[in-house]
């Protein structure tokens, strides 16, 4: 059997056998990335919306910076968060390094700008559409932000899914701040990196296929929810 068919049959065995260890790792990945995306949503979407609606000096620079952050290497985020959380760093007293919380923080830093950048574009387009209407109603800008966030909720799902995709698939940041500790901070991606470095390439690919399956299921769920919601409000 060649490496690929071996990997695929191993992936099915992992999925079918419901390997307890794999389930644990998938669970941690979902928890960490899910929370990071939740925090990213709470921070990134309002931030993006403010940038989309606001008109102030330096806004263009902020937009460029934000779009640039979409390409931020996860390793850089990992190192920066590591230095912050390290015992010798400014937040060292919290003792958060090598914990799932640290991984959530790092991934939040990673996905919030991405989600904000996508939200900014979405909200700005919608704002152009409603601007006259809102101005005549003399809506305060903060109300405009709130209303547009609500109005674009279906399109903003794309921002959330992009954040989730980036969080679930990144390895650099969680590896550095989580430490890839067995049964504590090992996620799908760090497990894949570990199996690759142990030379067990079929298992690495199999885990990759499991990760892909998980991401596909999440995207499918999101699509179903979106369609249900769209039917509600045309």
């Amino acid at each position: 059997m060649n490496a690929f068919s071996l990997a695929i049959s191993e992936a099915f065995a992992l999925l079918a056998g419901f390997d307890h260890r794999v389930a644990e790792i998938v669970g941690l990945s979902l928890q960490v990335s899910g929370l990071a995306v939740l925090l990213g949503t709470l921070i990134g979407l309002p931030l993006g919306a403010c940038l989309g609606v606001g008109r102030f000096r330096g806004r263009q620079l902020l937009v460029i910076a934000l779009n640039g952050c979409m390409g931020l290497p996860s390793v850089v985020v990992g190192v920066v968060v590591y230095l912050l959380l390290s015992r010798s760093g400014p937040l060292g007293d919290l003792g958060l390094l090598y914990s799932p919380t640290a991984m959530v923080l790092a991934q939040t830093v990673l996905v919030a700008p991405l989600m904000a950048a996508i939200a900014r574009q979405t909200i700005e387009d919608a704002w152009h559409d409603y601007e006259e209407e809102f101005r005549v109603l003399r809506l305060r800008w903060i109300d405009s932000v709130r209303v547009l966030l609500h109005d674009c909720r279906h399109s903003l799902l794309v921002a959330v899914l992009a954040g989730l995709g980036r969080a679930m698939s990144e390895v650099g940041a969680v590896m550095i701040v989580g430490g890839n500790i067995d049964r504590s901070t090992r996620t799908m991606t760090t497990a894949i990196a570990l199996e690759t470095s142990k030379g067990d390439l079929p298992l690495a690919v199999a885990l990759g296929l499991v990760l892909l399956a998980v991401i596909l299921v999440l995207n499918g769920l999101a699509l179903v929810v979106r369609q249900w919601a769209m039917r509600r409000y045309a």
Partner: protein
Amino acid sequence: MSDAAPMFPLRVRDLRWEAGGRAILDGLDLDLAGEGITILLGPNGAGKSVLLRTLCGLLEPQAGTIDWGGGRRPESGVAMVFQHARMLRDSVCGNVELALLPARLAAGERRERALAVLERVGLAQRAADSARALSGGERQRLALARAWVTQPRLLLLDEPTASLDPSSVDRIERIVREIRTEGTRILMTTHNLGQATRLADDVVFIDAGRVCEHAPVQRFFARPASQAARLYIQGELPWRMAF
């Protein structure tokens, strides 16, 4: 009508607005007293929409003055319904509540007021439906409700019945009359001359960015003073390209 600042008589003097080297408003003068329905007539490109947009504060006049009852433009009390009103992806009621956000009411009161006005435009049954699922006529009534709910003293309507069927037009006209009865000053544009005779107290005829004629409705249609108005009423005025 909580705003105590005076609004009428509204005096527009020598209003100018230019786009792309073409004068849209070319020294326009207009006086509006505090009551009734005034209908703006005039060919496309005459400057009607720009005038409405200037009055509601979307456009700053490039020259000229607008005197609101002896003072500046009041903070509130002017509402506008666009020809193509944008509706949020929200319920019918939610779209009306949008207009009440600046008033900072409690959610319950906001809802109550929105439902009350929806009742008056005949959309109470559809309050919970999606605004984007409404028909053209219903949509326009919703737009009127959204403007009405703020209890404006001046309501600007930009062709509120364009491309609606006759029964929808009739419903809109009844609502406009009702709003007027409650003391709101109405300034609206239309190309429907029948509608003008049915609704207007007076008519303002604009051509080439100036007011050619401002007269009570019967006199305007019986004895138009200007040649342009006469041709327009007879449907023979050559329409200028908008841009």
